[in-house]
């Protein structure tokens, strides 16, 4: 029987990160009743040191954020990418002369995308979510049990709140407990690399240029941010990471400078150094009875192409479209039909990116002479093949395949 602590909705989303919150807002904007359950306490995930990462937001993802009215809150913190330079490099020998140059004018007038700090995205989402009348955010909600049946789902939190809905969506990250308890297996691989992430301030203007150097330990990326800053994603062999993390600041900066080169002038560290383990993960199924996985709960990829969050947001746009279209004809939003269509729609796109990022990393994260030469020639070759290059760019920008309405920039 119902008691005061019961919350019932059309959709229950577990996980209030970027993907979960975006989905919650999207569905709520269309009028659906949504419960967004997050295990963190209020404001914990927007605290300064919770997440040091920044994300590359492709144009398709920008369209989603515009479509649900989050973009105006974000724009001031978004730094456009006008230029992408990809090069093979060596910390001591410098940058290889053969390199791939993507200029935004190759594909159109708009930038490739934007670099935005994850914290800024979370803050903007939090602000918009609090304005959504049919979105109920339940914080400090640790889901301890889930019962899924043919007609709906009931989850219970540690503090005894019962959350019921027609459909449960797991947006609880790569370690998804909801996924694991549903018995959905995953294919995983841990890389023997970790990423050191930090922000630097620099003397000269980056002019919206993103640089990715393929160093033997892994890709080293400099992503343009606002206020003369860059977000550095330094992927390195696992056994060297502790050493670099423990360096005093001046020596750490010296290591960075050696990799950066001098093009940005003098650099300063303006954030903590964070370390993130890297792994690839693909769930064998994205759905089960009354359950759908989105974002990292379904797939996690190597950050080499800056596509992880974009894939998650494409999941959001596709699933939201299927749910909203079903709700608009009075259908059951958690039916097998909706779930099967979601799985079909998203699996291939995700699979392609998982495979591509994994092979890119394998190809580039080494220092084997012949491989070096051939990948340098490969980069230069792609640079000379306009069609191939355009396809790769459009894919990276989220414009390949049957796109959800929100990704295309249309109304949901």
């Amino acid at each position, binding site marked *: 029987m119902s008691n005061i602590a019961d919350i*019932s909705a059309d959709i229950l989303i577990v996980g209030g990160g970027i993907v979960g919150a975006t989905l919650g807002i999207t569905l709520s904007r*269309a*009028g*659906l009743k949504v419960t967004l359950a997050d295990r963190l306490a209020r404001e914990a995930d927007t605290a300064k040191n919770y997440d040091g990462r920044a994300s590359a937001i492709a144009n398709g993802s920008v369209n989603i954020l515009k479509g649900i009215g989050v973009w105006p809150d974000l724009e001031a913190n978004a730094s456009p990418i006008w230029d992408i330079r990809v090069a093979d490099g060596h910390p001591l020998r410098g940058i290889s002369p053969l390199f791939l140059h993507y200029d935004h004018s190759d594909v159109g007038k708009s930038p490739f995308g934007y670099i935005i700090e994850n914290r800024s995205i979370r803050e903007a989402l939090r602000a918009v979510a609090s304005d959504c009348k049919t979105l109920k955010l339940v914080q400090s909600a640790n889901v301890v049990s889930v019962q899924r049946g*043919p*007609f*709906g789902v009931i989850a219970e939190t540690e503090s005894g709140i019962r959350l019921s809905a027609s459909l449960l969506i797991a947006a609880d990250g790569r370690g998804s407990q909801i996924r694991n308890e549903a018995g959905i297996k995953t294919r995983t691989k841990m890389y023997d690399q970790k990423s050191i992430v930090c922000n630097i301030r620099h003397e000269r203007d980056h002019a919206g240029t993103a640089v990715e150097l393929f160093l033997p330990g892994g890709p080293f990326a400099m992503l343009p941010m606002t206020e003369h800053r860059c977000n550095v994603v330094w992927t390195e062999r696992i056994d060297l990471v502790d050493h670099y993390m423990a360096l005093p600041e001046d020596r750490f900066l010296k290591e960075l400078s050696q990799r950066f080169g001098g093009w940005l002038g003098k650099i300063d560290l303006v954030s903590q150094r964070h370390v993130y383990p890297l792994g690839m993960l693909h769930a064998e199924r994205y759905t089960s009875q009354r359950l759908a996985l989105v974002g990292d709960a379904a797939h996690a990829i190597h950050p080499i192409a800056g596509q992880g969050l974009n894939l998650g947001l494409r999941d959001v746009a596709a699933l939201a479209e299927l749910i909203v279209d079903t*709700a*608009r*004809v*009075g*259908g*059951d939003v958690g*039916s*097998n*039909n909706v779930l099967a269509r979601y799985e079909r729609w998203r699996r291939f796109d995700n699979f392609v990116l998982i495979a591509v990022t994994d092979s890119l990393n394998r190809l580039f994260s080494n220092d084997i002479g012949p491989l070096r030469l051939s990948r340098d020639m490969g980069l230069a070759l792609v640079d000379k093949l306009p069609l191939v290059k355009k396809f790769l760019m459009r894919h990276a920008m989220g414009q390949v395949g049957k796109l959800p309405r929100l990704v295309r920039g249309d109304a949901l």
Partner: protein
Amino acid sequence: MTKEILSQFDRTIDAGEIDKFAAMAEEWWDEDGKFKPLHRLNPVRITFLRDHIAAHFSRDPVDIAPLSGLNVLDIGCGGGLIAEPLTRLGANVTGLDASERNIEVARLHANKMGLEIEYKAAAASDLVRCGCKFDVVVNLEVIEHVADVDEFMKDCTSLIKPNGLMILATLNRTAQSYALAIIGAEYLLRWLPRGTHNWRKFIRPSELAGLCRKNALDLAKLCGFRYNPFTSSWSLEERDVAVNYIAVIKR
């Protein structure tokens, strides 16, 4: 559709029958089961219903509950395949079916889905006697099964509130409908049990127009359904009313 066949076996319901109903409900609601063609047709039918009801009552059709507050009568509701979506779209739905079994199945399912729907095992004429009126009467694939079409239309008319709406779907009496609805659907594809339909009782649009005139109703729109066997999906076809068609009728 199947209700006439099932009604032959009707008897008073006892508690021991509930399991049987649960199994039948599963059958009615299995999207890939026996009623698959109906499930496939449903989004197209609901879209038509939603858009025309919303337009008539000046609502925004893509609102989450465009039919809220409207009283809708679903005649021949079967397992509730139309009644449930209309309820989710905000309508207060009364579902009517001649078969006690169908009503029991529909009730059970709505209950499990947490939807409030008033189901009654009754005929349209029973409601006329109690003086009930509705904003919208939904009458899908029923009229070709009734014994007295004139009497049935009269009953339906008196169930519509003044300025209300009736949406009626049926089958045209053409060579194509004989080939598709009888030979195709019942014999070749086995979508429906043989004998579900009696082709001679199908209604031509001209006959429907005549019935509307007799009851001072305005036949505002006719639209056909077309089935694409390659994608096994249905679409609305404005000009082709040779087989399945649907009509918007205003009082």
